[in-house]
Every structure is written in structure tokens, then in C-alpha cells.
């Protein structure tokens, strides 16, 4: 992405955003489709936040826990202490960062799969605990019941992050996804991003140059935890409900991983593209097939995951980018130079 492409790429981004701006008004009569868009943005957000860990060369299999921690913190603060979720979401981010420190500090120094396995196990511990615990000291966790968000003014109270229609949620989710992708993009252009790339490509070489791999991995992980927790609050506010059985589940962690990997983990825009592809497929399959073919859509997920890993190790991101490039060159055929598609893969 250099020279000419910059203005062109930003134009394309602005164009897509402009379309995204009018979608909820066009689809006003079809809330279900708006719902799918919100899910796409939510998972695009969560997977991009998850992808920060991937950029430092590690794989987290417990990210659902941070969704749950964010959602639980803000919702409990709202239900029992009257704190608005707009503030609570940042409290959730802090709580998630602290938990991230507990799991990340000892494991990110280790090589190999220990981090991936530890995050998975950590997720199971926390989920099992929350499902089976009514009270944690003075905090009312409500066990397996989960947290049902009390609606204020019938769910029409912007001051406490509750809206009557889907449109505000749509824009909040969109804004969050765009911000996190932008953040990831900008981080990639700083020194930290270069360190991540170096650690990911060859940890030994990076360390021999004096980069503290453990520290920069921890930084990526903690940032990712905090951002994921913010998404957890959005989750709880949008669904008006969060429970550990779903909101901290291994299956949710795997869904976040799947979206990220199919789009292209270790790339900036990959997880977002993954969400745009995976989420509609799953929603439509679920709606079309329903209970008749239990397991079919997860089976298809698994096949997609295997296919991408085997044949497209960088995910669908480079493919989509190449397609967009081709389209762009067709539309703006006057452009003098053409960058190689690989450049835009990052």
C-alpha cells in the first residue's frame, strides 16, 4: 500500500463506509438482516481484537472468557451498583486485563503450544466456576442463570447503553469494528508492530537483536484482552443477556478463532473479512436448516477451517484484496502503476 494506492485505497474504504452508513436505513423493514450485520461487526471486532495476539505469533483459545469478563463486569455494575455500562465497559476492560496478566505473564515466556493450551484451560476454569457460583463474596454472579439485563424505560435509555431499535447498535458495532481495525493498522506501522512481525517470523533472531519477545507478546495479549472485554459489554447490551454457558464457552472461543483464521490471522483486515464471510453463512444455514440437520453448519465450519489451513495459510484476506485490486484497476483504469497484490495482504 504505497504511493498511488494510498489515495485509491482510502477512497475505497470511504466508499464502503458510506454504503455501510445507509444500510440500516435501507433495511429498516428487515430487522433480521440488520441483526446479521450487527453480528458481523461484533465478530469482526472480537476477532480483530483476538488477532492482535496472533500478530505477536501466539494463538489464544480462551478469548470467550474476556468477552464474558467484560459483559459480566459491566452488567453486574449496572444491575447491582447502578453504574452505567458506558463506564462499566471500561471497568470490564480493566478486569479483563488483570486476568490476562495472570494467565499471560507466566505462559507467554514459554515456547510451543503451552500458551494456547493454557488459555483454553483457563477459560474452562473460569467458565465452570461462574456457572456453579451464586455469590463471590458480595458480588452476585447468579450462577448458571446468567445475567438478564434489567431494561430501563422499556429498553429506550441511551444514557445506560440501551436502545429501542437496532440502528444505534448497528452504528456502535460498526464504529467499534472500524476503530479496532484502524488501531491494529496503525499499531502495525509503529515500532511495536515491527517487533511483533519480527517475533512472529523468527523469535530467536528477534531476541538476538534485543527484542524482549515475552514482553511484547504480553503487551499484545493484554491489549487484546481489554479490547475483547469492551466487545463483551456490547454483547451483553445488545442481547440484553449474558451467561457463562455461552459467553465464556470454549465454543465461542473457537468461533472467534475460526473467523480470524478463515479471514487470515496475523493480518490486519483478515478477521474482519472472515466475519463478513463466516457469520452470514452460519446465520443463513441455521435459519434455513434449523433443527433438522443438527451439526451441519458446524461441520461446514470445520471443513472450511481445514481447507483454509491446508490451501490458504494466509486466509482469504489476500484473495479478497486481490479481487478488490482487480476491481479497482478496472474502474480506475487510468492508474499509472499497479502494486503487487501481496503488498495489500498486510
Amino acid at each position, binding site marked *: 500500500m504505497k504511493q498511488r494506492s494510498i489515495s485509491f485505497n482510502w477512497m475505497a474504504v470511504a466508499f464502503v463506509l458510506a454504503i455501510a452508513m445507509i444500510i440500516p436505513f435501507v433495511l429498516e423493514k428487515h430487522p433480521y438482516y440488520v441483526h446479521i450485520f450487527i453480528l458481523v461487526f461484533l465478530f469482526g471486532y472480537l476477532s480483530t481484537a483476538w488477532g492482535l495476539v496472533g500478530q505477536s505469533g501466539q*494463538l489464544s483459545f480462551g478469548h470467550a472468557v474476556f468477552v464474558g469478563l467484560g459483559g459480566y463486569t459491566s452488567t453486574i455494575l449496572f444491575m447491582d451498583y447502578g453504574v452505567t455500562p458506558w463506564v462499566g465497559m471500561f471497568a470490564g476492560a480493566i478486569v479483563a486485563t488483570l486476568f490476562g496478566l495472570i494467565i499471560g505473564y507466566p505462559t507467554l515466556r514459554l515456547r510451543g503450544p503451552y500458551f494456547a493450551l493454557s488459555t483454553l484451560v483457563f477459560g*474452562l*476454569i473460569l467458565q465452570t466456576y461462574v456457572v456453579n457460583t451464586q455469590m463471590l463474596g458480595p458480588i452476585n454472579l447468579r450462577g448458571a442463570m446468567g445475567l438478564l439485563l434489567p431494561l430501563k424505560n422499556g429498553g429506550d435509555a441511551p444514557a445506560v447503553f440501551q436502545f429501542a431499535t437496532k440502528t444505534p447498535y448497528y452504528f456502535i458495532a460498526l464504529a467499534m469494528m472500524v476503530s479496532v481495525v484502524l488501531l491494529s493498522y496503525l499499531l502495525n506501522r509503529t515500532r511495536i508492530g515491527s517487533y511483533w512481525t519480527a517475533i512472529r517470523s523468527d523469535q530467536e533472531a528477534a531476541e538476538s537483536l534485543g527484542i524482549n519477545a515475552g514482553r511484547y507478546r504480553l503487551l499484545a495479549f493484554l491489549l487484546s484482552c481489554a479490547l475483547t472485554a469492551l466487545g463483551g459489554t456490547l454483547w451483553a447490551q445488545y442481547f440484553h443477556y449474558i451467561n457463562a454457558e455461552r459467553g465464556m464457552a470454549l465454543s465461542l472461543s473457537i468461533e472467534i478463532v475460526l473467523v480470524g*483464521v478463515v479471514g487470515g490471522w496475523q493480518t490486519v483486515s483478515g478477521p474482519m473479512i472472515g466475519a463478513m464471510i463466516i457469520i452470514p453463512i452460519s446465520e443463513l444455514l441455521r435459519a434455513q436448516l434449523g433443527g433438522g440437520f443438527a*451439526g451441519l453448519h458446524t*461441520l461446514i465450519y470445520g471443513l472450511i477451517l481445514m481447507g483454509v489451513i*491446508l490451501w490458504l495459510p494466509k486466509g482469504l484476506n489476500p484473495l479478497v484484496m486481490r479481487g478488490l485490486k482487480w476491481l479497482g484497476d478496472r474502474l480506475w483504469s487510468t492508474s499509472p502503476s499497479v502494486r503487487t497484490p501481496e503488498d495489500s495482504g498486510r
Partner: protein
Amino acid sequence: MAETLISALVAGLLVGGLYAVVAIGLSLIFGIIRVINFAHGSFLMASMYAGFWLWHLWGIDPYLSIIIVVPLAFLGGYGVQHFLIRPMFQRERTYVVEPLGVLLLMAGLDMVMANGALLFFKSDFRAVTVLYGSAAIRLGFLTIPITRLVLLVISVFLAFGLSWLLSRTELGNGIRAVGQNREAAALCGLNVYHIFALTFGLGCAVTAFGGCAMLPFYFVDPSMGLPLAIKSFIIVVLGGLGSIPGALLAGLMIGVVESVGGQFVTATSASIFSLIIFLFIVFFRPKGLMGVLEA
């Protein structure tokens, strides 16, 4: 109180035998080939379904079905390694070393197998009913179900058999060499990928052996795989990567901890406890109890 404790201890050992037999197979795959085999539990599930259908359709006794299921599992494991994982390993040479790719591949395979079973066999719990299913030995206040005792004995035999194979045979030497240093083993003239595939097949065969022996007292259902796979990871890491006796010991330990711990605290707290053991091992002693390979 003492009686309760002793019964809990015995029950724990019996459950531990089950854990161990699943973990021993994984120990080969995880410890030697370094594949985070997410699908390990699904391989167990598949072999148990095979045993179940052999019994259901043709009335073949689960213990007898071992002769059919184990070779099939070996071929299946060999095939998975040869056709799915080997291309990933070969790519690693040219690209960055990325063992996480294989992990994700196996996670995908697990989704395919578990949901394939759900699609074709439905979510019903299937069980084999055999005449000796409820037979038990009574020793004073203790009641020991024979089928579970058999599984414990099998797990001990498999562990010792595999240890013998690894330390005393040509193939075992090859497997250990490949596990220690892939490049050096290749330079010594070993066909690394063939040995990997044999190891994977062997791991699956051991698991299938245990799976058939579990059938007389254990339900089969499509979602049984992942929880058992995770438990096996815990056991393998606890026992030490690449150590077969370690896996046996750790399996028995986890079984006893859960069973005895369950006498004092709730069952969920006991299962959380075994997960916490895993984190402690990873944090403070990544080598595990009897680790032979450095982390």
C-alpha cells in the same frame, strides 16, 4: 470415613485407568510428533462408534471387536498424518515454522468428526449391553466392576508395552530419534514422515484399543470427544511430554484427585482443581512429572 476414602481411592484409580488409556495414545502423538491433536477425543469417539455398530449390527462382543477396530484406527491415524499433517510439515520448511497451523487443522478435523457423528448418528447416548456388564468383585465393603478393572489392567499393559516398544525395538529407536531432532534423524537415513505416520497410527490404535474396552460401561455420544481430549492434554503435560509411564501415572493421579477430592468438595470444584493442576505444571514445571523432553 476410612471406608469412604478407600472406596473413593479405588474408584479414582479405575477412572484414572480410563483417562490413562486415552492419554497414552495422545502422549505418542503430542510428545513425539508435537501435534496438538485436538481431534484425539474424536478419534476415540469414532472407534467407540465402530465398536458399538459392530455389536449392534452383528452382535460382535466389544472385546472381540478390538481385532477389527484397532487395525482400522491404525490405518486412519496413518492416513491423517500422511494426507493432512505431512503437507503442513513439508510447508514448514519453506515458510515460517508454524506448529499452530497444525493445531488449527486438527481443531477443524475435530469439528468435522464430532458434527459428522452428530449428523449421522444423532445426539443419542449409545451403550452396549453385555451380560458381564454389571459383574463385580466384592472385597469386604469394596465393589469393583470387572469391566472397569479390565480397562485399568489394559491401560497398565499398554503403557508398559509401548515403553518397551519405544526403548527396545528398532522402530522405537526411530520414533524417539525423530521426536528428539527431526533433521538429525533424517540425516541418519530415517524416513521421518513414514515414522511420524506410524507413530500417529500407533497412537490412534492404542486409543481405539482403550475405546473398545470402555464400551461395556461407557456411553458413546458425538460430543464426548473434546472434554476427554482436553483432559488428556492435561494428563500428558502433567506426566511430561513424551513420557508414556508419566502419562499412566498422571492419568491415575487425576482420576484419584477428582474422585477423592469429590468427597470433600463438589464435583465441579474437583474438576476445576485438576485444571488448576495443569496451569501450575505449565507455570512452574513445564517438563512435567517424568518429563524426558525439554519444554
